[in-house]
């Protein structure tokens, strides 16, 4: 299935686009994250220990989820990755 992944915050600028479409081999969050990490910007999603950075927020639709949650996508679902921003 196809999954649209929206990118917000600094991730959007770092990746150079506001969304990517994944062709998932399995409709699960863990598969989506693995595929994202294999992209050229994948290292931006990782903490020093190789796990998904706790600074990246994940949303299924508009509901926050954790990178470690067992989530299975249905047709039409969207995933959003949001990196922190601040004032100034």
């Amino acid at each position, binding site marked *: 299935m196809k999954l649209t992944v929206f990118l917000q915050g600094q*991730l959007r600028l770092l990746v150079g686009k506001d969304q990517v479409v994944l062709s998932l081999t399995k409709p699960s969050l863990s598969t989506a994250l693995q595929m994202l990490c294999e992209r050229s910007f994948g290292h*931006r999603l990782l903490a020093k220990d190789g796990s998904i950075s706790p600074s990246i927020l994940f949303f299924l639709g508009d509901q926050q989820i954790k990178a470690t949650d067992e989530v299975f996508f249905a047709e039409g679902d969207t995933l959003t990755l949001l990196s*922190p921003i601040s*004032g100034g």
Partner: protein
Amino acid sequence: MQQEVIDTMPLKHETLSALTPEEQAIYEWQMWTPGFGELGQQKLKSTSVLVSRVGGLGSIVAYQLAAAGIGKLVLAHGGQIKPSDLNRQILMTYQGLGQSRVASAKERLLQLNPRLDIQAFDENISSENCDKIMAEADLVIDCAPLFAERFAMNDGALAKGIPLIECAMYELEAQLTTIIPEQTPCLRCIYPETPPLWKREFPVFGAVSGTVGCMAAMEAIKLISGLGSLLTNTLLTIDLRTMSTRKLQLNKNTLCSCQQAIKTKGLAEHACE
């Protein structure tokens, strides 16, 4: 998942300040707003708000609250005005280059509202000075760029049990959320650590900081007066490139120190019964 909507601020004031005839005249148009009225105006007049810092975001927040008739502003911002401040920091002036930012902010705010009580600190918030700067605040609006400052304000607001409005911007994006101690996720629930990607200097337009600054000021007015509903448990994201908004639902982090403190407090209260 259904999120809890919180409608009013736990206002600590036992008495509200009456309005003078001059204030009645100045705030007449906003007091016509249903659900706000003279009582809402009195609540604004009786409230002290900490705005840190008064840069691109905080300038607008402070200016709008001053215009709306807030009683007291506590301002914290260190350093002197630089050329690169002037694309967005509307309380700074070209003539003021090299002079104190917070002094400039205070002067500009008093030109608009000479009745305003302002406590100005020529320093940025840290864990060391947070108690002192936050001492007289009923509400905190975080407009700071560095996560160390933001975490200090978060921890101070949680310790004092006062609300915290978090606003942020980047390029053409903006974010806003309201934190109510013990009721919503705190900043550390949302961001457990200082984000490694974050850089102190970043692309932004003054119109972006102005947009989210106005929205943060409106959120504060609503929170103080009990008008409307708040961005509790919700991260509002605004994309000015496409003029689109989203309301993302946030979760408390059960591993966060704020949730551990609530659990400990609950156990202690239970033991006392």
